[in-house]
């Protein structure tokens, strides 16, 4: 198992993947913090959260844990990026034909897939750390530029950061597993990303509007709540349990598909 993880880590250690993923994470962190500081600091009414984006109130942002508000606000953006990179790495094995080599070298497909999940999880943890560090650097700058008092940010720093890091990691892992499943089913990175982004931007909004009863159970809402450490409508425990359930279901589907389908590419 460790061999499979180490092998996958080496294969995914590509400049394009690493710089692209890390770069987009830093870009989104800067963007969300700058916009958020202007929005919460202005006297204008808070804009409606766009697809996958939710802004905190001024009080929430100025609270001790407000320093990590940018992470939870941009969680869906990070999530779509994570879904994309998990899908690119997984579907890329099929489009390049590399899967023939790896499946011949490691015939235990469960081990092979879990090795990929392990390696991508480690990359996701690294990306989460990058997002946290970028947020720690950018959020105070954004607050200063909007002339906001964020003196409370110095309190309970470690528990706040650890909690935000864990919540964002858990959220991104669920997004990543969704990307993995889509890539294994469609064997196409483009189709997987289109389906994932389309779901976040359109499908979930339609489902929520049409079926109010399940609005709090949908993946997007659940993952937003998980990233925020719980919301009024979805408590943290529920979000965590649903996130774990989505992950297990996703891994179950991925393992079944990967084990049973022929490798004909």
């Amino acid at each position: 198992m460790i061999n499979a993880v180490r092998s996958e880590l080496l294969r995914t250690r590509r400049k394009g993947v690493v710089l692209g993923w890390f770069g987009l994470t830093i870009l989104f962190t800067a963007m969300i913090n700058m916009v958020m500081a202007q929005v919460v600091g202005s006297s204008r009414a808070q804009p409606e959260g766009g697809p996958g984006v939710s802004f905190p109130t001024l009080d929430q942002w100025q609270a001790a844990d407000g320093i990590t508000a940018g992470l939870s606000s941009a969680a869906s953006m990070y999530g779509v990026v994570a879904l994309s990179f998990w899908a690119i790495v997984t579907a890329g094995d099929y489009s390049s034909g590399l899967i023939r080599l790896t499946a011949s070298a490691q015939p235990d497909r469960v081990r092979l897939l879990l090795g990929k999940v392990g390696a991508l999880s480690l990359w996701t943890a690294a990306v989460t750390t990058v997002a946290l560090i970028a947020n720690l650097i950018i959020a105070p700058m954004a607050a200063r530029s909007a002339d906001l008092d964020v003196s409370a940010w110095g309190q309970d720093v470690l528990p706040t950061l650890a909690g935000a890091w864990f919540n964002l990691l858990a959220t991104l892992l669920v997004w990543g597993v969704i990307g993995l499943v889509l890539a294994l089913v469609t064997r196409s990175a483009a189709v997987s990303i289109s389906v994932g982004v389309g779901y976040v931007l359109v499908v979930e909004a339609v489902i929520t509007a049409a079926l109010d009863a399940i609005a709090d159970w949908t993946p997007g809402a659940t993952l937003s709540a998980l990233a925020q450490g719980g919301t009024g409508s979805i408590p943290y425990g529920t979000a965590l349990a649903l996130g774990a359930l989505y992950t297990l279901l996703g891994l179950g589907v991925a393992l079944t598909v990967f084990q049973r389908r022929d490798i004909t590419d």
Partner: protein
Amino acid sequence: MSVIKTAGLTRRFGEVTALEHLTLELPRAGVIGLVGPNGSGKSTLIRILLGLIAPTSGTAEVLNEPISAPGRYLQRVGALVENPAFVPGLSARANLMSLARLRGLPASRVDEVLRTVGLTGRDTEPVKRFSLGMKQRLGIAAALLPDPELLILDEPTNGLDPSGIVEIRGLLADLARAGRTVIVSSHLLAEIETVCDYLVVIRFGHLVYSGPVTDLLARTSRRIEIAAEHARDTSSLLTLLSADGWQVEPTSDGRLGVAADEHEGAELNRSATRGGITLKSMTPVRGSLEEIFLEMTGDSDQDLTAARAAAAERKAS
């Protein structure tokens, strides 16, 4: 002792039957050629043996282990299936290292196979800068990583320059001498004839031939091409030999082709001498694998047409 054994192996892709009741047994050790036109089922057979796809029905064993449990034998099998596929942005060494790690092999094994295929010195370059021939060498290196008992290579000399082809031929022969079994799937029948000891011919998913190459070549019609010392004697020689019971026909280059085995050369020479004609040359001519292949598989697709053209070219030269 067989290296591969199949019984009634069948694989269908929807309406298409890629392999149909394929039953064969391949001997351990030596170089085995797997030939057949495009779509004959070669790649499907290789993929089934490597556990990449499952058969629709039938059974097979590789190194005496059932294909339903590829984990029991794939650590002893190296394979290059179709075009070599690697991560283009990574170096040759990193690509091999990732496969070595997957197999639980030490880094020193990577150095060994890089040396074997002649890529030492180029191993730190990204694979995307490699030529087709270099990628092919890297693919062979990847197949050699587990120091396999059984090596399955699909078109191993594809893209290699003549010296590279000679090197790979030598490598295959060395592996066979060391007791390994090498299965080579190729369209280059002349190549197969040179390298292989044993041959499997498949057409439309059916087994056409499985046996030693020498046995197959022995089936071909043999003849001796002769030339009279003086060209003016050629027609007399034809009449004379025909009267003696030989089957003779003129060739396009003014000589005569006689249906005879090499050991009948002396008798043929005596027939000519008895008629007062001195022979300038006697050349035994053996049918090529390409000709036999065409006879066995017909000419139903482009591959066969190409093979026929190649055979005609060889004949003319």
